[in-house]
């Protein structure tokens, strides 16, 4: 299969990755256009506005360039693949930086609810609305646990310590919260059922 330059915008993500496997820089550019915003936003959410967030974006996309075969379209979308890598890398950075970590834990304990706000992560109006509806199906405690884990980069044990709750309770809230989110987004026609 060969890919003409003009057709790049019409390619599926999976086909785009095939083109990237052929060292097509224009295919990389298209992947960057589609997904870099979400990757950067997540990195910044976890690492704040510093240079580390941009470094993570670069790492994630260069990894795609160097090892595109690690993406398996049967396992999920390219965006979730890139975001999972971004999240994992950003969390590694956070956990390696213990002094920063302690500082942020204190901040998080102070304003755990106001600092993390799922809906405001989404700028696209339509998607935001669907995500907002799905998030609204979460109880406040489930929502807090998911937010602190995903956007705060905390382990469930840390979340439990921050909130003064048993670890099993937090684990359960994350599970229930993610399950409700998935169902809510599926009901809105987004994501897996």
């Amino acid at each position, binding site marked *: *299969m060969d890919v003409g330059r003009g057709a790049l915008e019409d390619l599926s993500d*999976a*086909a785009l*990755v*095939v083109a990237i*496997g*052929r*060292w097509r*820089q224009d295919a*990389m550019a298209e992947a*960057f*256009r589609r997904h*870099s*915003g*979400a990757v*950067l*936003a*997540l990195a910044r959410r976890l690492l704040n506005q510093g240079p580390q967030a*941009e470094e993570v*974006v*670069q790492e994630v*996309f*260069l990894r795609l*360039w*160097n*090892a*595109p*075969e690690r993406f398996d*379209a049967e396992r*999920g979308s390219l*965006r*979730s693949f890139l*975001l999972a890598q971004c*999240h*994992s890398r950003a*969390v590694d950075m956070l956990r390696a930086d213990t002094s920063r970590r302690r500082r942020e834990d204190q901040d998080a304990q102070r304003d755990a609810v106001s600092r993390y706000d*799922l809906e405001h*992560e*989404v*700028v*696209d109006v339509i998607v*935001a609305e669907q*995500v907002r509806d799905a998030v609204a199906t979460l109880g406040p405690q489930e929502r807090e646990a998911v937010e602190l*884990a*995903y956007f705060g*980069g*905390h*382990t*469930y044990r840390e*979340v439990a310590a921050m909130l003064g709750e048993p670890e099993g309770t937090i*684990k*359960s809230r*994350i*599970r229930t919260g*993610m399950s409700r*989110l*998935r169902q809510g*987004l599926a009901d809105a026609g987004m*994501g*897996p059922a």
Partner: protein
Amino acid sequence: MSGVFGHPEMEGLLAAYALDAVDGEESEFVELHLRECPRCRAEVSELRETASLLAAGHPPAPLHIWEEIVAGMGEAPPTEVLRPMGRIVPLRRARTVRTAMVAVASIAAVVIGVLGAQVAGLNARLDRQEAALPERTITAAFLAAQGNPDARRADLISGGGAVLAHVVLQPDGTGFVWSDGLPPVAENRTYQLWATVGSTTVSAGVLGPELTVAPFKVVGDVVGIALTEERRGGVVVSESQPVATGLVRSA
């Protein structure tokens, strides 16, 4: 092996794991479990898909980040991450293997059979393979093979039932084996791939001590694939129990 965790406990951890909220030994237990449990692997994929929707809808990142990426691409053009076959043993005629390698494919619990091993022109195969892939990288060929609707596939499964590697085999005989979780063997050892064609088994490639993705070519109707660990350089006749085996499924 899921260590101290039973399946229910593991299921309770998956959502936190999908959000990178599990660390240390617990994370390792989850990863071990995921290698063996396709249902939980699918669950984690779906949870990550859900999480990704929370970060949707942003405009592209600033141009200077793209420029940094391009600079990185230029300074370090992608090396071939796909491991070509390792040291190739000399051409030999086929000969019957003396040792039975009982290969259990967990799905059907089918014994692949007594392996008759031959190393049939591996150097020549490599040359043909590379000649057959002009102007495109092995990486691209691998991705194309994955997307080939006529390709046949096999999951290579350990005796304990863990899926350790995968194979995609195209109608022209070119194929790829890959793994993202198989631990590397010692430097003086190697993985070796075997293909059962009809009633005999041929060596399909010496893969080196670390298996990421490797191409191979086997002529004939391949019904089974086996992966063994051998001494560095590979062997003509394997006396090893397979690390994993699998039956090749129809396209």
